[in-house]
């Protein structure tokens, strides 16, 4: 199976990376150049840690690894530039379709809203919106599925594992204390 089906080159398994051999996918050269530039930046930053002070300096290993990054990134750029462009693929359809962009935006919004809004409201909004968009089913179904799974996740992480996600606008701790009081009150 040398010719990879264009609907299948998703690289969902790490073992079969999604690149196409001997062909250049849209945006691949740009990504390689980005990596090269980033590597150069990191090499410069690594040099700034301690320069060529000593073999044991904190910057020695970072400098060596970023140098390897620069060299390999350069090879990749040269190799990629020589490859012919793959036919029939476009960046906006095969690499970054609208749905992926939307979800990337969702994730960024999640990260931004998490602290001020708190975990429960943010996660609820995210799940409802995401499931509604993807499943295109009734609001009732969407709400039921997303809120139930959120409740489950919250119970496991917050109650069992006492992971204190940012509470934000929800008075979570007071809420839990209320139940705890009820519980201990009943126990006494």
């Amino acid at each position, binding site marked *: 199976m040398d010719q990879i089906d264009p609907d299948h080159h*998703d*690289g*969902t*398994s*790490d*073992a*079969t*990376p999604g*690149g196409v*051999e001997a062909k250049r996918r849209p*945006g*691949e050269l740009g*990504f*390689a150049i980005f*990596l090269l530039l980033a590597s150069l930046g*990191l090499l410069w*930053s*690594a040099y700034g840690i301690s320069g060529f002070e*000593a*073999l*044991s300096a*904190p*910057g*020695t*290993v*970072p400098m060596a*690894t970023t140098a*390897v*990054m620069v060299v*390999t*990134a350069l090879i*990749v750029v040269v*190799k990629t530039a020589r490859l012919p462009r793959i036919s029939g693929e476009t960046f906006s359809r095969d*690499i970054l379709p609208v749905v*992926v962009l939307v*979800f990337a935006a969702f*994730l*960024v919004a*999640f*990260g931004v809203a*998490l602290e001020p809004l708190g*975990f429960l409201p943010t*996660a609820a909004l*995210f*799940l409802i919106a*995401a*499931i509604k968009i*993807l*499943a*295109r089913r009734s609001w009732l179904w969407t709400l039921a*599925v*997303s809120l139930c*799974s*959120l409740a489950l*996740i919250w119970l*496991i*992480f917050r109650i069992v*594992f*006492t*992971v204190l996600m940012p509470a934000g606008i929800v008075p979570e701790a007071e809420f839990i204390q209320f139940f705890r009081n009820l519980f201990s009150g009943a126990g006494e």
Partner: protein
Amino acid sequence: MTALWDFLTVFTQPQLLLLVGLGTFAGVYVGAIPGLSVTMAVSILISFTFSWDVYPAISLMIGIYMGGVYGGSRTAILLNIPGAPSAIATALDGYPLAKRGEAGQAIGVTTVMSFIGGFVGIGVLALAAPLVSDFALRFQPRDYMLLAVLGILLVGSLSQGSLVKGIFAGALGIAIGAVGRDPLTFTERFTFDLQIMTGGVSFIAVMIGMFGVSEALLQLHHVDKDAVRQKITRIVPSLSTVRKHLPLSLQTSTIGVVIGALPGTGGDIAALMAYDHAKRVTKNPERAFGDGAMEGLVAPETANNAAVGGAFIPMMTLGIPGDAVTAIMIGALFIHGLNPGPMLMIDQPDMFWFIVGALVTANIFMLIFGLTGIRLFTKIVEMPRSVLIPLIMLLSIVGAYAVNNSLTDVYWMLGFGVFGYFMRHYGYPLGPVILGVILSRLLDDNWRRAIISEREDFWRFMGGVVSSPLSLTLLIAVILIFVSQTPLWSRGKARLFRKKES
């Protein structure tokens, strides 16, 4: 005789038996959820079991530990998202099997192999603990460094696509591992003078991002495609399958025990090294590695469970933790009024045999829980993607946060998720990145310790390497493996074989 009695404590007390079982059961799920780690579970148990006796507390912890190390393989196979770092190698061949609908068989083999690996680890702990811990203590900084170099050479076998891209990914991983304040001199590295960067990047966050979020983003490409139906009729592997893989599993278990017993290395590195070993010694796998080779499941799963027994070796004989979980258990013993240390085996030999007994019990429970309840797990993958994808993303966020209660880790995780998405599209392997992050500190810290110990004199350092049998062996292994990966070797081998034929 008393040793036997102590060993049997768990079996004779229903309460302890129940706790080990409960722990193992919970452990499988803790291990399977990326972001919930055994380390976390065990440190919470310290407060939870504070007022208990020491036996029940330890029983529960050991159950969670055994189950958790095994549980990491579940999500690795079913979703391509390793539940724990030690299951990264399992995803490489496990997920292709799930894509064919053979997840049931993969989980069956994984379970039986984890069981075998677990037993080898416990066996070595019970019979040769002092011997192994003496050996482990002999590792000097330079040996740890050589071990890390040996680990980095695994990049070759983890990058199925392009080797150059694999090397890039590995180097990137090492650089990621260096971010933050250097733990030896507290110098800031790659922090760009930002306060939030000084804490470094949690490698669990990198792993969850690269495997979890990027996988979820990729799945968005075909939300509407039906999930693969999983065959779960044949779960328990046939005796002949087990027998066939027995030699390999014993070799990889040995790797697991030794790497696990070394303070400073654990199941994650052991599993990757075992995977590499399997690839090297398996001449004709039924399926290619990376395509669903059984050997690719056998090796990491035996090794990471064998590493559990291994990690207890320095803990029981010297009071030195073999990994993060045993470090917390030492704390637990201490809180319960024991004095973990080299005298523990002499002062309280019952504790040693009790722990061995509890480990054996946990291992048996792991087999039982592993082979049952698979149906429930496979249901997860058969869930509609429209629900599964948002849930994976949410779990990734919560999981990344939970590692160190830090929002910064969530941002890192999301960043690496998007980055990993592009890497997958353009054929950059992700395994080497994680490998690099795992090995970064081992390599960097020990290189610096080794060269400082020799007063910055490189030749004195090399003199130390060649005059120590252990270092020399490691150096030779590094050279052999390195040469075997270069084109020179294959050319030379081809010439050699042609000569023989003529």
